[in-house]
């Protein structure tokens, strides 16, 4: 299968996502410039981490106007799998492809460290290969990852099982101490109602090789390969 890795001028995890898809997983991957208007027939789209347009105003605020986002929106509407990692997640929120918004971390500082997330749902293209309740040790690296949505929205997210990943402690409990940034309900990642668009703050692409401290993130990439192979997600051409 083929991954499209969208490159905004300030993306800085684009090469990491590419490396994970292409070199670790052995799949096809292609960079798509943010001004491009074609996704080059990719099977899945990754919006990588970074600071898309410097993000001095608000993370992702300007990126949503990039020409490529119209294509991403169409691809998502047609059921294609889209993964937003960190800044990519923030862009999906700003673009309205996922609900809610990001606030500054509770610590008001950038935080880079490993956290534990629990896989809450396995019926998304990016968690299909996980076990429900599986715990993944994956790094975060962000200053604005404090997920917020209006209480009604959060309630709907929970009742529609759209919370895909949650920050938990080593026992799997979503405690305040396990929550690195103050996100409501310890939400680390979520999906849209169609379940094909997933965004998360942790960086699975940084946890695909044991030599880097963890290979727990690989399962997310394996999931999408599997779901494309099984046809559980739409092929968008």
């Amino acid at each position: 299968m083929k991954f499209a890795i969208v490159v905004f001028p300030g993306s800085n995890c684009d090469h990491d996502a590419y490396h994970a898809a292409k070199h670790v997983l052995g799949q096809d991957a292609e960079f798509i410039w943010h001004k491009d208007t074609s996704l080059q027939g990719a099977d899945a789209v990754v919006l990588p981490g970074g600071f898309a347009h410097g993000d001095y105003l608000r993370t992702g605020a300007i990126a949503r106007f990039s020409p490529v986002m119209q294509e991403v929106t169409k691809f998502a509407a047609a059921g294609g799998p889209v993964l937003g990692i960190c800044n990519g997640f923030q862009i999906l929120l700003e673009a309205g492809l996922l609900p809610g918004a990001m606030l500054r971390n509770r610590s008001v500082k950038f935080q880079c460290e490993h956290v534990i997330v629990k896989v809450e749902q396995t019926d998304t293209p990016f968690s299909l290969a996980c076990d429900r309740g599986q715990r993944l040790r994956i790094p975060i690296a962000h200053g604005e990852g404090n997920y917020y949505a209006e209480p009604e929205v959060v309630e709907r997210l929970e009742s529609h099982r759209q919370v895909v990943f949650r920050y938990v402690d080593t026992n799997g409990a979503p405690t305040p101490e396990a929550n690195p940034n103050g996100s409501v309900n310890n939400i680390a990642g979520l999906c849209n109602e169609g379940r094909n668009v997933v965004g998360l703050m942790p960086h699975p692409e940084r946890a695909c090789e044991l030599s880097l401290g963890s290979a727990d993130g690989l399962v997310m990439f394996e999931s999408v390969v599997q779901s494309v192979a099984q046809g559980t997600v739409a092929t968008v051409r």
Partner: protein
Amino acid sequence: MTISDEVLQRHGLTRDEYGRIVEMLGREPTLTELGIYSVMWSEHCSYKSSKVHLKTLPTTGTRVLQGPGENAGAVDIGDGLAAVFKIESHNHPSFIEPYQGAATGVGGIIRDIFTMGARPIALLNSLRFGSLDEALVRRTFSGVVAGIAGYGNSIGIPTVGGEIAFDETYTGNPLVNVFCLGLAGKDEIIKGVASGAGNAVYYVGAKTGRDGIHGATMASAEFDERSSEKRPAVQVGDPFMEKLLLEACLEVMKTDALVGIQDMGAAGLTSSSCEMASRGGAGVEIDVSLVPQRETGMTPYEIMLSESQERMLLVVKRGREAEVERIFGRWDLHAVHIGEVTTDGLVRVKNGAEVVAEIPASSLTDAAPQYRRPMAKPAYLAEAQQLNLATLAAPPSPSEVFRRLLASPSIASKRWVYRQYDHMVRTNTVVTPGMGAGVVRVKGTQRALALSVDGNGRFVYLDPFVGAQLAVAEAARNVACAGAQPIGATNCLNFGNPERPEIMWQFARAVEGLGVACRALDIPITGGNVSLYNETDGKSVLPTPILGVVGLIEDATKVVGRSFRDEGDAVVLLGSGRGELGGSEYLKVIHGLVKGVPPVLDLDLESALHRLLVSGVASGLIKSAHDCSEGGFAVTLAECCFGTGMGAAADIPGLEAVAGFGPVATLFGETASRVIVSVDSDRVAEFQALARALNVPATAIGQVGGDRVRIATSGEVVLDEPLAELEPLWSEAIDRYFAIPRAVA
């Protein structure tokens, strides 16, 4: 025009220097020319006080591809690749505006690296501050850290290591030294040269404003009337702009349309144009009216001297301009053709049709003044070197000393700091901050690079010659602990006012020490930076040479960190203690003293130790390694345990010392060339044989396990502490300074 003493003084030029300018030009300089000379002949750009000394450093070696003289040095790391690296200081700006000062320091060193055609892949920093007990220092410290994070994180270069120490002498003059390393094809290194008459000179990047035109270089009454409001001495960094420049420049460099490139750092357009012309043996003609300007009414003087950030100067082959402009355009950057390379060796600055400066390029660089400034052994030394333990108060119990040292900010965990740095982006970081030297793998090869920055100002203060050697040894030892062969070094020399003979003496002796150590350890110095005038109210900071050492690891899968790995492993001490307390953290924390002589350094032993570490790690015998530095053996042993959940028990020979000081000297003395390693218990003999062959003392002193840190000296237990109590003292010490009492609801 008549140049008054006052104008010269404001330009930091002496009457003699002015005389040389007139002689070189054959006439009086224009105001713009005077400005150009003043910055090019400034200490910062010309190294006029330090050059005679720096020339003595060893700068060559079989791996050296680029020594001092370019924007950064480069060494061959095999596989057709070069490691390009350098360190720079941003001390003064970081005191005035900690966030922006530190951020722009990061921006500057990154430009030095990609200017060479290398993709930056790792950052480190070495920081010095006053005591965290002071609110001002806390603000400077947190601002500097946030600035380093803010810039490095957003541009996407991981900060993989660094070091921080605290001492009152840095209160009004913190040190912010930033190191950057990049990778380039060995044959693709690009230089800052201008050559080929008729080739185009391009300006690209941020617009030019009045930033950083220093008070000292203001020229006339007319200039003074413009309030200082208009001339911020602090630049604001724009990491997004730099990211665009980085990507676009690397793309342009892949074409062969580029002749040379240089960033506009200190002294901006002036130094970049003059240095490129001088290196290329050519001339350059530029028209400042074409330079993109952020503000209105800027004079040629201001445009030439501005230090606005994120700007590059390029020389492009004639006929290839459109191609280069197109690449920049793709990154939304507007490259502006502002001049040409000429053959006359002159830097000619025009403002439209009017020539405002015309100076022989070499008179600004090679022919800049050099001084052998007077030196004198400092008066403080004799007294400071006298350490008579018998006159000190009796030491507290080992347990209390241990706890206080672990919580001392210079020793305590720096997690509060490096958690704010993205240290994993680019997915190369094999050893993360806090685990020893930073290690990054080199994708596409089997290799990895280990990086460390170190320097102990107290040791240098007490003996610059030995202290500087200890800095080299420590940085090199740190990379060796990861399993890396040290292959190159860069240095940042932070000292006080060189016009004071005692400071100049410190400087000269330190440079001598660097040379001796680098030669003995076979580590060429490929570049560096000198930061002088680090003083507040006539009081200098501790003389602080910082060494950045790059080490090469042949097999990236065989890298070790500081932490013990398995219960039951043998703990082996390499080297042997001498109980040296001179300049130690113990003396400072417990007795408030900086006294004595620094530890003795045996460079033969040090070199053998590095060989043992490299082969011991490569053969898989060594499972963890951590060098003994501040806090000595006991602190080092505890640090090997922290984060693992495992304790350790060790028995080391007790050392003789003045009555009552035996245990503290044994436990907390800072004898050099010692490393604690862990080895599989049934391979200890094999490892010791290896050590014997290399003449390195290797004593099996205990084993990993349990939940306490227990140390006996000659069989008698002198420390026996629960890990669960020790660890938070160390891991949360810095956080505690920033814990804000919660607001009452």
